[in-house]
């Protein structure tokens, strides 16, 4: 039963990823695109966790944690770049 539920959840997450992708392409401004990227990586974490459950493997935890760390740093760096024109002050 759990396998079916996981596949269904992966379907829902794909719809969510497509919706964020729509916002990423449509824009209209840079902050919108950064926000879409931010959402995209959080949804990516969700997909990876679901895939790990589907394959019954504990290995995907590190990948999810790394994506969380990298995504946060890049979001803050790009937002900072928009505000000040440079990242490292």
């Amino acid at each position: 039963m759990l396998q079916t539920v996981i596949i269904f959840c992966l379907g829902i997450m794909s719809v969510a990823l497509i919706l964020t992708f729509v916002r990423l392409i449509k824009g209209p401004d840079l902050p919108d695109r950064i926000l879409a990227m931010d959402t995209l990586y959080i949804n990516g974490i969700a997909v990876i966790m679901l895939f790990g459950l589907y394959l019954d493997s504990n290995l995907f935890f590190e990948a999810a944690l790394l994506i969380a760390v990298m995504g946060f740093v890049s979001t803050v760096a790009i937002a900072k770049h928009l505000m000040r024109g440079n990242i490292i002050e």
Partner: protein
Amino acid sequence: MSESSWVEWVIAALLLIGSLFALIGSIGLVKLPDFFMRLHGPTKATTLGVGALVVGSMLYFSQKSGEPSLHELLITLFLFLTAPVSAHMLAKAAMHEKLRREPRTRGEPWDQ
């Protein structure tokens, strides 16, 4: 109904709730009219969605191996700590860029 199937139902419910919340966050991202309103969707719904998914996965691996597997909590903790920070940075960047606001928004943002 045995005990393990009971746990399985809880896990399935958590996974469904989590992905539905993530979907709602993305719907908000597409549907809402201006940037500041869009900011609300991902910072809350998506964060809680991933949180619920992570708790479900934690329960699953704990039940499978028979001993508590808590390390997925780190992801939730990290997301809950960082979501307000990135929302704050994005809001500041948007105010700096003087993005278009919905005309009915009351109050004024500050000049950066």
